[in-house]
């Protein structure tokens, strides 16, 4: 059990977390005990990888010694991030099959773990009262299906994640 003190929007929460399995946790917050499962954790944007530097007390400098370098160095800044891919280009994304138009998922033809060929139907999407078959843009293995039948999707929303064999 570890205790985390987290500030959200100026409000301080004390959260106790106890893991029960790799993806299951028991969380105590605000006097309630919750069963939490981490369903997914994916990178959707370029995350900043910064070295973790724990704030420490300033080092004890023995009296009489003076640093040669100036006291304050310019702070390190992370390099500017590459621009995010434009939103209007949903089909370009690498392994996500995205919704080409808004609509409702009629049926999902594949399940996670299935091997799919180029052009194999993945799911059926109903848009403007017309059923469209979304096919696999390349061969691969279905890593994850993000939607279920009956879900309504927006343009560019990920439907299925494909990975290489």
């Amino acid at each position: 059990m570890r205790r985390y003190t987290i500030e959200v929007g100026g409000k301080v929460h004390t959260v106790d977390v106890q893991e029960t399995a790799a993806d299951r946790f028991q969380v105590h917050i605000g006097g309630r005990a919750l069963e939490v499962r981490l369903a997914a954790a994916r990178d959707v944007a370029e995350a900043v990888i910064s070295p973790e530097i724990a704030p420490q007390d300033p080092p004890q400098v023995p009296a009489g010694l003076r640093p040669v370098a100036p006291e304050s160095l310019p702070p390190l800044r992370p390099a500017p991030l590459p621009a995010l891919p434009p939103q209007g280009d949903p089909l370009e994304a690498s392994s996500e099959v995205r919704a080409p138009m808004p609509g409702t998922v009629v049926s999902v033809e594949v399940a996670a773990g299935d091997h799919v060929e180029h052009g194999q139907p993945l799911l059926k999407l109903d848009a403007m009262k017309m059923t469209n078959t979304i096919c696999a843009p390349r061969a691969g293995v279905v890593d994850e299906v993000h939607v279920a039948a009956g879900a309504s999707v927006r343009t560019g929303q990920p439907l299925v994640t494909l990975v290489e064999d």
Partner: protein
Amino acid sequence: MEHATVDRLLAGVTALSPGGLFMLLVGCLLIYLAVWREFEPLLLLPIGAGCLLVNLPLSPMGEKEGMLRILYEMGVGNELFPLLIFIGIGAMTDFGPLLENPRMVLVGAAGQFGIFGTLLLALALGFELNEAASIGIIGAIDGPTSIYVSNLLAPHLLGPITVVAYSYMALVPLIQPPILRALTTRKERLVRMPYSQRTLSKRTRVAFPIAVTVVVGILVPMATPLVGTLMLGNLMRESGVVERLTGVASGALANVVTLFLGLAVGSTMQADAFLRIATLKILGLGILAFALDTAAGVLFAKFLNVISGGHFNPLIGGAGISAFPMAARVVNKVGLEEDFENFLLMHAMGANTAGQIASVVAGGVLLALLGAQ
């Protein structure tokens, strides 16, 4: 039994005429197309039934006090029914794809060339100007507009024009693909157009029908009835506060009026009015109107493709007609045949709804041009 009594009893049989028999066959053909081929069954079935009922020998249905005559006077002669149907169409149509892609409006304009092209051809075939114009309006590919305009310009051609318009509308999935394929290259059909969804505020959705009505109404007063009713239906739909009215307009009212309209139009198909060489010509000109619309739309879209530097799929031009939503589906299907990932549906829907507005505007313009003559 007296001779006169026998005559009276067999009056129906003795009154049979070859023309009447032929029209009975035509009525049966329309019903067959509606029931087994599912060609616009909602309209062709009542039209076929109306045709049967009015052409039976000595049928009282089409006489002065007959039901079909009453229906005709009630809503077709005075243009009421097409307008009521337009309210229903407006209540069913989502103009979202058009609002997200406003430039599609122009594609809808190009898709109206069939009206004027057919008008020219009809003039060349020797039709009067008002007749030619009402035949041309088949090129609006919009049932209510055709009925509205042709009834104002040439009421005696209403029957054939309506039947031709609705029959070919059912044939859009057969008429369009060959034209689309013939006029585009494979490279053009492969042009992908990513669809970017905009969030439209309710204010925009509500303001759109009002703005269109006011602008079109001021500029083309003749189009006010058509645009006004279409947009009234859409306003009711988008406002979201009169769901009961929207439901009735797009459901019960539209169904009732469709039945009445079909029967009334069918009753105009009387043998002496229908069995003329003009009907055959209209049949031929009608399919030309559809083809010209599609071709003009595609050619204009090719022009847009050149301007945009190859980022506009010319197939979309084929959807710039009013046949909603068949044309958009056909375009989407032809695009998918070439590349299963190329979904043109939303763009085509935008062009298709633009075609609806454009056909109404074109109908008004035509009326204004001929009225001013």
